[in-house]
């Protein structure tokens, strides 16, 4: 008996009857051969560490953070890490500009557009909220100054101007 002999789509709940010989048990795991090749290819590739200049990672004055490494910084700005010891950290970013571009390139490995799209993916899939975004460094510093746990990135010049308001996060 044909379940659906006029249906051109076999990808169907009512697809024509068939019992493939090698399909005795449904849901059995099949490892795609191409996956092995792709995995090997990835393992060959080496990462290229990036150097950063002129940008300073800053924090709210009362927020205590250990010396971070680049991976910590990346995880923080991608929302993958929010806790260091007992300190809950939330990031804030600039909207655009050379400092923002340089930081994203050197620490996060993304362009401004790629970084925004990353957060849009989190946002529109219900997995997260975008970090607060500020049009200039003055507004960003003001936010960090009044928000315990907040961190962000500013230029060395701006940091020097606000040394009494915010503190530097050391990055090794």
């Amino acid at each position: 008996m044909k379940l659906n002999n006029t249906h051109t789509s076999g990808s169907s709940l009512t697809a024509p009857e068939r019992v493939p010989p090698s399909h005795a048990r449904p849901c059995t795991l099949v490892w795609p051969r191409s996956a092995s090749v792709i995995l090997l290819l990835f393992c060959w590739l080496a990462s290229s560490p990036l150097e950063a200049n002129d940008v300073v990672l800053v924090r709210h004055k009362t927020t205590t953070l250990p010396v971070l490494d680049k991976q910590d910084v990346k995880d923080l700005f991608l929302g993958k890490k929010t806790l260091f010891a007992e300190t809950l950290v939330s990031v804030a970013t600039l909207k655009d500009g050379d400092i923002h571009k340089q930081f994203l390139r050197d620490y996060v490995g993304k362009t401004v557009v790629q970084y925004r799209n990353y957060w849009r993916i989190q946002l529109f899939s219900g997995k997260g909220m975008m970090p607060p975004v500020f049009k200039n460094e003055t507004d960003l510093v003001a936010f960090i100054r009044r928000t315990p746990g907040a961190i962000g990135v500013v230029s060395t010049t701006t940091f020097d101007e606000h040394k009494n308001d915010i503190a530097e996060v050391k990055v090794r």
Partner: protein
Amino acid sequence: MTTYIRRVLIVATSLLVVGSGMSLSVTAGPLTSLENLPFDIHGFLSLGYLDSSKNNYFAGTKDGTGDFREFGLNASKSFTPKLRVGAQIVARTLGDVGDDEVVLDWAVMDYHWHDNLGIRIGKIKMPLGLHNQTRDVDALRTSILLPQSIYPEQLRDTLSALVGVGLYGELPIGEAFGSLSYEVQAGRFDIPDESGVVKLVESGGNFTTEGFDEETSYLAALQWQLPVEGARIAYAYFEGQLLADTIATAENSYGIPAMTPVTLDADPLCGHWWSAEYELSDWLFTSEFNIQDRDTDVGGLTSTKARLEGWYAGAEHRFFDRYVGGVTYSEYYNDRNDKSGQRYISEGTPAHRAWQKEWVFSLKAEVTDNLILKIEEHIIDGTASLFASDNTAPTAQNWNMFAVKATLIF
């Protein structure tokens, strides 16, 4: 010049002209009036056009169709640094699926207890492949249509989200090994009235759908960020059950008396998804592979077994920061044990119903932060993804499809 090519040129030119005009009037960044709300609000609106040379692709594409659009709006609020609540509604149309019906896309209460463990309760998007959770948001990918080999349109709104509970977090594996994140979910489908799965059940002309009984489904997903900058691989397993309550039609091919209630029981409905992505500077390389089992009992009268296979590989290049060009090749088979369609031949139907192989060339322009324009050409061999109800005339093995889309997002 054929009619198809002429229509493609007219629409492409129109898109460029309209896009250029819109880019001058759309502001960059969030809408100012929304910045002072007590919660975050974001949304998108996509309008598309599909035009195919020979076969109808989920809609009347042979004549060109604008019945191809999506709308979404979400709101989120963090009540504490660890507790977030949000929801998103969407409406979409592709041919006669969706019908602009506004449905709840996701709605979650998310408690991020620790980086290693968080819990989400509500309607949760399913991480089946790299794009399933954001497939309604056209702006977040380069292609207009996702590869049907991994993301079939028929089940788009079914394999979208589960109403239930999910756990997620990052597993500590040591920085030398990258990072490993996980998601596990348990819940039930929430199938909208105008779902693609309704069309799937009814397409053969045997049944009309009365409703669905959704049993508890389970999902587990892992994503490994390799210790290589920009590289990740992912795996997801899903297993569930879906019962469709139907009424036999007068012309059903089973000999069932008309108007008899028949339950179609898809058990198990399960699949494996493997994904790999490597982002190297302005290049993005992606490949995904999927096996799905759909064993269906038809009212206790008979049963069907189907093991579907699909994969694709693609490369994208971003240039001038706001433009992305991409090429993707995909293959999809209705039965991985009969890729040449011998069964279809034995039934006197074209073998090309067994497969669908596509080359897709895409161009995306992020005209502003809020306006995205796309243009895309499909070169297709096979008809495995098509519906009979969309193609009453004989189908052609080799055909083309052209797509354009404009999206506003904020």
